[in-house]
């Protein structure tokens, strides 16, 4: 049946084709209409730039102590003031932010990569494989997280990378569960059946037909995972298990600040303020994404 009727097919030039608008494009258009989310995105971008580029522009070094200028309030020289060892707080907030944001992003990306592939595979294969893969997830869930991290630290020594691994190991679990249930639902859809009946390979079906369709909720969860991970890092640092002084993260700075909160309140206010604003922004972005990606609001 190579001769289809009406097959006087002239070449179709790329330019003449009507461009479609993908669901991603539609979602982006909806997100742009959400003022809170867009505002949060702007603020968040600004904070990221501030933390990444700031230290290059500042005359101070984050670890350079100046005991003569210890614990000074905000001034023209030191906009955020200095800490008890005379280190410029603004630079320390920037550098601390780098680490906090990096922990948040790297751990989330790790969690995302493992969770999506693991969950999609379990859901796609189904049956006994799915059951045993998910029991493994339950097992990891049941591990007490703090003890798990302490054990890791004791066994391998304190390291920031180890912390990434530890947090990533925990966060991918919920991601895997969400992806799996999404895939289980999609698997019954006729377009997946159609893909099977066209003889596509398993990896093609998973990568092209299943994963792009569960990505919506996954992205929402990911934006909400970043702040969760940052809180976790702050918590670990607070316990002395995370980033260690003189290195700074927002968690470390807040820990230092709360020790002197009654005498030198700015030591707490600035890092805590940045941390809080970042968390707010990420949560608002996550909410905005959820609304934008909600299939119910897609025009159908």
């Amino acid at each position, binding site marked *: 049946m190579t001769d289809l009727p009406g097959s006087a097919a002239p070449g179709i030039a790329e330019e003449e084709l009507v461009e479609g608008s993908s669901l991603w494009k539609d979602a982006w258009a*909806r997100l742009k*209409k959400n003022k809170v989310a867009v505002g949060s995105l702007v603020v968040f971008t600004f904070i990221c730039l501030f933390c990444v580029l700031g230290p290059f522009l500042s005359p101070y070094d984050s670890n350079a102590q100046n005991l003569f200028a210890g614990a000074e309030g905000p001034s023209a020289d030191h906009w955020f003031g200095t800490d008890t060892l005379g280190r410029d707080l603004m630079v320390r907030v920037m550098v601390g932010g780098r680490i906090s944001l990096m922990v948040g992003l790297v751990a989330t990306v790790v969690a995302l990569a493992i969770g999506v592939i693991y969950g999609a595979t379990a859901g796609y294969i189904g049956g006994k494989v799915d059951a045993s893969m998910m029991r493994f997830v339950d097992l990891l869930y049941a591990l007490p997280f703090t003890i798990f991290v302490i054990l890791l630290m004791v066994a391998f020594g304190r390291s920031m990378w180890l912390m990434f691994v530890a947090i990533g190991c925990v966060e991918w679990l919920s991601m895997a569960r969400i992806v799996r249930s999404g895939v289980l639902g999609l698997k019954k859809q006729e377009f997946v059946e159609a893909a099977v009946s066209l003889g596509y390979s398993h990896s093609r079906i998973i990568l092209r037909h299943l994963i792009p369709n569960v990505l919506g909720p996954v992205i929402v969860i990911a934006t909400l995972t970043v702040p969760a991970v940052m809180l976790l890092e702050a918590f670990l640092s607070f316990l002395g298990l995370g980033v260690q002084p003189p290195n700074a993260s927002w968690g470390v700075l807040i820990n230092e600040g709360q020790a002197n909160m009654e005498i030198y309140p700015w030591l707490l206010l600035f890092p805590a303020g940045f941390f809080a604003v970042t968390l707010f922004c990420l949560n608002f972005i996550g909410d905005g994404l959820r609304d934008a990606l909600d299939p119910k*609001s897609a*025009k159908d």
Partner: protein
Amino acid sequence: MPLLEVNDLTTYFHTRDGVVRAVEGVSFSLERGETLGIVGESGSGKSVTCYSLMRLIPEPPGRIERGTAMFEGHDLLQMSQKELRKVRGNGIGMIFQDPMTSLNPYLRISTQLIEALQTHRDIDKKAALHKAIEALEEVGIPGASKRVFSYPHEFSGGMRQRVMIAMALITEPALLIADEPTTALDVTVQAQIMDIIKQRQNDLGTAVILVTHDLGVVAGSCDKVLVMYGGREMESGSVEQIFYRPRHPYTRSLQKTIPSLQTKGQELYTIPGLPPDVSKPIHGCAFFPRCPYPKTDKAEGASPELEEIEPGHCWSACGFCDSSTPIESVLAKAGEVAEDGVPASAGEPA
């Protein structure tokens, strides 16, 4: 005074992507004991019309923009929530397309029937249960006195729809609204359900509004028909008028598309093009772009007006076309129907 008199009912949905004009100026009336069929394709506004009457439109985004719906002398569209609760389930009963989702899966049938009865009647539990069993017997559920204590999932689809009918009619409402009551059911069960609705209607003298896309179901059970398209009334009249003397090009076309009326071996007749997009304002006749009738001078009429051509038989006369001739002769004159009904514009996005 008719039991229900709807005038100029207009319901819009104000969505993010603009105003969806789901129902635009629909009017009809219904006497006690009568059956009105509302026919249309998906998006024609037939279901929204009924939901508007029951005030079950989600507000926002939906809004009843204007119109009146006088039911036993009171305007349904102006009622307070308190008054509405009295009418719903008591004056007007409703059954839905999907009997799987319209019963509460966690409650026994007995509980749900008794609740329906006790909400509107001052009746003790024992008497209510007795009445519930009676109601189930009347819709042909075998062993009703035992099965009344079952849960919804213990019934099959057809049996569940019977339970729904029993529940909607247990308070003996004056009006029953049935929204595609047989669409989710098998053909053999469909016939049973339609028979039961008809029989209960005769017993109780209930008026029925039957929403459906199936002209065959309408032919078998309705007295009057309202044909809707693009949210508007296209034609209305008695079932004989609509089936034997249709006037509107859409009614004529719709009748022509039914497979069982066509001779085998010929191409099926198709209405070219696509249903209108009600999220954009429609100027003039909604069916104009798909109308097979030759157009007269377009300057004659701008917006269609309802014209009564015989007592009780109205059609939306657009003034563009002369639809007094049967569709067959029009099509014969036009030569050939486009292949598969694909006009040049069929590839345009909806």
